[in-house]
């Protein structure tokens, strides 16, 4: 038996549900010798902004128990250089290419969606409305249903490219936001981003990261994100893409049972650069062993009381 692992996001069909998460996989070329791109569903680029950004100063990352806090500050090449120097490579790889992007205003999102969505080789866009690590742009759009809907609608109107919107985890009712984003025209929703967090050096009294706060990712947050995925899936009918702590194919299956149609491999790429391929292979094996021939049998199949 072969299992059909494909996933549809708007008009885009992914070979399988495994995507690499934005900011944890560079612009893909870095992993050329490690990852067989034709074994995963797609790659998501580092977040692209209208202008290049240097990001924050050192220190930018700090490890905590089973987690990582980062405040990179969206260090990226900017949209022009992205097109000039990164896109050619991405166009050649044999999996979907999703470009993650963010701006400081609703208009900024719309403009960038238009520009990126028109580039050949860009298969989908992921609007990051949830970055905790910059002063403007990001999180303030992700914690309010109306603002989230505005950004979604503006981006939606600017492009026909499949549009994913990436939500914040630090909200009380993610279903409300997911539903607002669905109604505003998103093709899929990523749940979630890093969780706002902080760590302090008790000797120097300085925060461990130069930015002060940071975002927590990795296995530590997976149980939180699993609950957010479940709540989002209950509130919407578009695909939910899980992002937070997935490390093995078991975590992939768990997220799918909670309601995810696809799963991002993020921090785990640092722990094991081949993780995304191993997750895809493990999922296939699980499906074959359990006689699952369509992922629909899995997505949202948790047996809640």
């Amino acid at each position: 038996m072969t299992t059909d692992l494909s996933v549809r996001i708007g008009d885009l069909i992914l070979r399988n549900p495994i995507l690499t998460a934005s900011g944890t996989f560079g612009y893909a070329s870095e992993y050329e010798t490690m990852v067989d791109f034709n074994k995963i569903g797609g790659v998501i680029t580092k977040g692209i902004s209208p202008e290049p950004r240097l990001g924050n100063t050192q220190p930018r990352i700090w490890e905590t128990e089973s987690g990582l806090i980062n405040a990179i500050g969206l260090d990226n090449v900017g949209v022009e250089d992205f097109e000039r120097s990164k896109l050619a490579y991405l166009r050649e790889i044999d999996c979907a290419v999703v470009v993650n992007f963010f701006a400081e205003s609703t208009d900024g999102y719309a403009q960038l969606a238009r520009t990126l969505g028109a580039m050949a080789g860009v298969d989908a866009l992921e609007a990051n409305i949830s970055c905790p690590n910059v002063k403007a742009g990001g999180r303030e759009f992700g914690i309010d249903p109306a603002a989230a809907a505005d950004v979604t609608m503006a981006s939606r109107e600017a492009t026909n490219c499949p549009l994913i919107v990436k939500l914040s985890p630090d909200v009380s009712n993610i279903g409300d936001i997911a539903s607002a984003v669905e109604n505003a025209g998103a093709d899929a929703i990523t749940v979630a981003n890093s969780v706002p967090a902080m760590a302090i050096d008790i000797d120097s009294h300085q925060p461990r990261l130069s930015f002060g706060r940071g975002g927590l990712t990795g296995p530590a947050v997976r149980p939180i994100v699993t609950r957010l995925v479940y709540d989002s899936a209950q509130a919407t009918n578009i695909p939910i893409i899980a992002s937070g702590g997935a490390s093995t194919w078991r975590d992939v299956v768990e997220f799918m049972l909670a309601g995810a149609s696809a799963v991002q491999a993020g921090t785990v790429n640092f722990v094991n650069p081949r993780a995304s391929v191993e997750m895809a292979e493990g999922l296939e094996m699980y499906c074959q062993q359990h006689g699952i021939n369509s992922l629909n049998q899995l997505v949202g199949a948790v047996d809640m009381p």
Partner: protein
Amino acid sequence: MPALSRIPLETVEDAGGGCLRLVCAPASLVAPMPGQFYMVRGPWEADPLLPRPFSVARFRTVKNEQVQLEFLLRIIGRGTRLLGTARAGIELDILGPLGVGFEQPPGDSAWMVAGGIGIAPFPALTDAIAAPERSLSLLIGARTHTEIPGFKDFEANLSGGVEVATDDGSAGFAGTVVDLLASRLDRASDQPPSQVYVCGPHAMMEAAAAVCRDAGVPCSVSLEAPMGCGMGTCRGCVIRTFRNTNFTICTDGPVTDANVIWSDQNSP
């Protein structure tokens, strides 16, 4: 071409000065350049989570063209502590070789300047640049003599000798290794080394670089920052140069000419 390999740990031993020597079993690997590093992780659960970067301290090619890697590390925190309690036979996940290593010195003499565990890459460098006509020296500093890691087994190739500096004067020169470097450069002003290689804490490297710049001697440093990926993707190890540009330590470095980071004065 970095690769990810699972390699049994052949030897774990105390290297003195709170340091540990790890020797991996020979494996089919690309040989590294001295100054390159590996991301290393033991077979534990999710805490500690990330692999840890370590410079290759030494390597040799054994039968069947297999490469045997050796690391020298100071036990400072949770990850290194766990490595210290590991038993021979466990398997390590090793990603590398990564980054840019040291270049050959442009002339006949070279000095290596180590701050504590900063000695780690110098056995491999010494193996690679030792030559009959070349004078190689090691300057090593620590707060106190008990913190100086063992370095006996490559002394033979250090034809220019080894000098020790301790902040507390408990062994060798009393003062920092940068003071020692300055005074030695002073004395050698008619015959300066063709290259100084520095590895240690950032402040020490910056100071050493300034001393070399004043003396008109090329200085390469091996930089450090917390690392997530070692592959240029997480952007965790990025530092800002004096030109307000980003320098990605894991891919642009860790080894670089000091002037790239700290000074617009051209390398002489």
